[in-house]
């Protein structure tokens, strides 16, 4: 994480101002001396954030976009986090303390995420923070959590190629979602793919991986198109997809764009039978807002569906609907968020401390009987073993599982276990 710049340890007088103006002002104010240079072994553990454990509560931060374009997705994650916290509090809390959630609005704006993350850590003294959705927001807060040695639990599937010592990734990394989806397509003989994605990090990185996979597995990529985030005009892309006569479309669009894409897809006369679309960002919530008339029969790749079997899920779905309304669906990111709170609780209880370093040390092997099935934390990568599931969207708005990986897949964010991925990172 530290910059790898070389050079000897500085022996300059530390009281030298680093800019003329700065120097003059320093003299005037005589308040500050210059701090550590980048190449000095500066960061010491005393900078770690103070966690406020006074009283009988412990605070945690909920950092989600409640306004702006991403609010359509992130509000449900916040709701689901609150549900988990309520449940834990109702059953006695963590280490005898009730969890007090502090909710902040990231406002779909990356610098705001960074600001609010700092606020949660430094002002509120939270023991851990849960949230973020887009990769951009995660990248923006990553240095904040690292600098302050505070923990972030990130609940959304993402593009991989990342490991931060202070982030736990409870959503899928690529080998738990995209690779299984590709395996599935290959097994069905759908070998000519068209890639459609939003223009940002996740789709571009995911498509890079897909192309590497395709090359190694005798599949062909007939085209690749990106639309700016929030773009809602897809007629041209639909035309291109149609003209390509691909076997299937791999869809990494995010948010609003999916609605427009699937409406256009149907208008172009394309169907799940003639050219299925595999989506990795369409969960039950999105199905509800797009409509089954456009989506029925299409495929999705996740680790959890509302229909996933098991008592844990039945309980989760029931509790969620009781709290937020019978018409509210549950989805994979919501489930991963819900699970992340329980995982944190288990880690804290194992460590018998809220101290992030001790929590991290205790994380390896923590398991939880989650709605998606049993999950286990991989302490080395701080990702989670998850079961990959391919689902088909039904006319009732539910997603029916058509395939699963049988057992939880070990997280491999850098795809080290896949020879075709060797050139990627």
């Amino acid at each position, binding site marked *: 994480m530290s*910059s*790898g*710049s*070389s050079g000897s340890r500085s022996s300059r007088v530390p009281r030298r*101002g*680093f*800019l003329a*103006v*700065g120097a*003059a*002002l*320093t003299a*005037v*104010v005589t*308040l*500050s001396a*210059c*701090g*550590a*240079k*980048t*190449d000095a072994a*500066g*960061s010491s553990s005393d*900078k770690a954030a103070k966690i406020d454990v006074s009283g009988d509560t412990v605070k945690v931060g909920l950092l989600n976009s*409640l*306004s702006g374009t991403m609010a359509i997705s992130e509000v449900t994650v916040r709701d689901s986090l609150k549900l988990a916290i309520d449940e834990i509090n109702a059953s006695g809390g963590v280490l005898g303390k009730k969890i007090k959630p502090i*909710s*902040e*609005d990231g*406002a779909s*704006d*990356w*610098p*705001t995420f*960074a*600001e*609010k993350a*700092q*606020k949660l850590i*430094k*002002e509120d003294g939270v023991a851990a923070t849960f949230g973020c959705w*887009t990769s*951009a927001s995660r*990248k*923006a807060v*990553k*240095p*904040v959590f690292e*600098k302050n040695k505070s923990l972030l639990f990130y609940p959304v599937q993402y593009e991989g*190629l990342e490991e931060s010592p202070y982030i736990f990734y409870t959503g899928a990394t690529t080998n738990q979602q995209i690779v299984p989806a590709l395996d599935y397509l290959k097994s069905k003989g759908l070998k000519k793919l068209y890639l459609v994605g939003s*223009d*940002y*990090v996740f789709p*571009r*990185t995911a498509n890079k991986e897909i192309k590497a996979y395709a090359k190694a597995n005798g599949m062909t990529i007939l085209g690749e198109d*990106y639309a*700016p*985030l929030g773009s809602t005009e897809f007629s041209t892309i639909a035309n291109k997809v149609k003209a390509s006569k691909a076997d299937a479309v791999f869809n990494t669009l995010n948010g609003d764009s999916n609605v427009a894409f699937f409406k256009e897809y149907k208008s172009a006369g394309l169907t799940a039978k003639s050219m299925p679309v595999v989506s990795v960002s369409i969960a039950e919530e999105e199905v509800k807002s797009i409509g089954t008339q456009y989506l029925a029969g299409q495929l999705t790749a996740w680790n959890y569906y509302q229909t996933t079997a098991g008592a844990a899920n039945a309980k989760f779905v029931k509790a969620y609907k009781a709290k937020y309304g019978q018409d509210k669906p549950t989805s994979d990111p919501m489930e991963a968020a819900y699970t992340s709170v329980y995982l944190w609780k288990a880690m804290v209880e194992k460590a018998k401390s809220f101290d992030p370093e001790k929590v991290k040390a205790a994380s390896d092997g923590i398991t939880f009987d989650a709605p998606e099935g049993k999950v286990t934390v991989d302490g080395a990568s701080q990702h989670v073993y998850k079961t990959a599931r391919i689902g088909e969207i039904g006319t009732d708005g539910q997603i029916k599982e058509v395939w699963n990986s049988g057992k939880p897949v070990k997280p491999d964010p850098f795809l080290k276990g896949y020879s075709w991925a060797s050139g990627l*990172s």
Partner: protein
Amino acid sequence: MNVLKGRSVRAWAGFAGAAVLLFAIAPLALSDFRLGLLAKYLCTAMVAVGICLAWGRGGLLTLGQGVFFGLGGYAMAMHLKIADAGPGNLPDFMQLYGTATELPWWWKPFENPAFALAATVLLPMAVAALLGLFIFRRRVKGAYFAILSQALAAALAIWLIGQQATTGGTNGLTDIQGFFGYSLDDPVNQRMVYFVIAAALLLLMAIARQLINSRYGELLVAVRDSEERVRFLGYDPANVKLVAYVVAAGMAGLAGALFVPAVGIISPALIGIVPSIEFVIGAAVGGRASLVGAVLGAIAVAWAKTALSEEFPAAWTYFQGLLFIVALAFLPGGLASLAVLVRRRKAVERKTAVIPVGEAA
């Protein structure tokens, strides 16, 4: 003459007061985190100084300041990313998303700190000069100018997002570790960044004040009030406007450049239409034509955004919207006009005290 002198004494007093507030009181009173936020607010205030000049004085609807802010910010961040990576290495995001094995040619000059520093101000100014030359010559005015600026802001943001391998795409340039050799991890250095920003703000305010009070400043107001008339006096209003526009762009660029070490990120989200509007709103709420008003307004609006969203994370946009509406619809001169009102009332009171008979109206 006396009036002038009185004004300048007041200005110096105000300046000194602001310096004490920024350099002594704020660092003592605020936690590191809040001081960091203040640094961020001061950056928006720097943009507001330029807006006050170009819009308040020159009547130019500067709805594209995000472009210049972004150019300055990216120029700075590119250098810092190269420096973070160390000699011979690529910045982290290029290794992740790119295929290139060496820096793209247009990154290379930014390896040089002097070039990068100069570029933070000169690049936005050059772009503004080029644009302004066309726009003002062709007499693009009012709503057209506003919408045009927005289109440019949108275009730049979309372009940056599309170039993920070389610009970081939507993520922008993040995780900036050092600032010219000083680790940004260290709170002491963070504090220094704050001081630099505060000093830069005061410097920009001094420059703007000089411009506003100069003959040029009077001419600028004349152009705002009646461009055609100025032309018949033998001036080319395009040049007059161009100066204000370019200066405002340079100020926004510097603000963007200093925003980077203060916040540690620059991204297309800071460039597009929304931030461009937000920059203007701060100045408008405070009072576009008054330098102090614009600066305080920008700080106040930015602070209100933080405070309201911390207090009411789910409903703060109501308050924010309401603030804009009330301030702008009912106080056309911004909050600064309140001060003028108070002063006028006091003056009237004084007058009535001397001449008790009437005249108060």
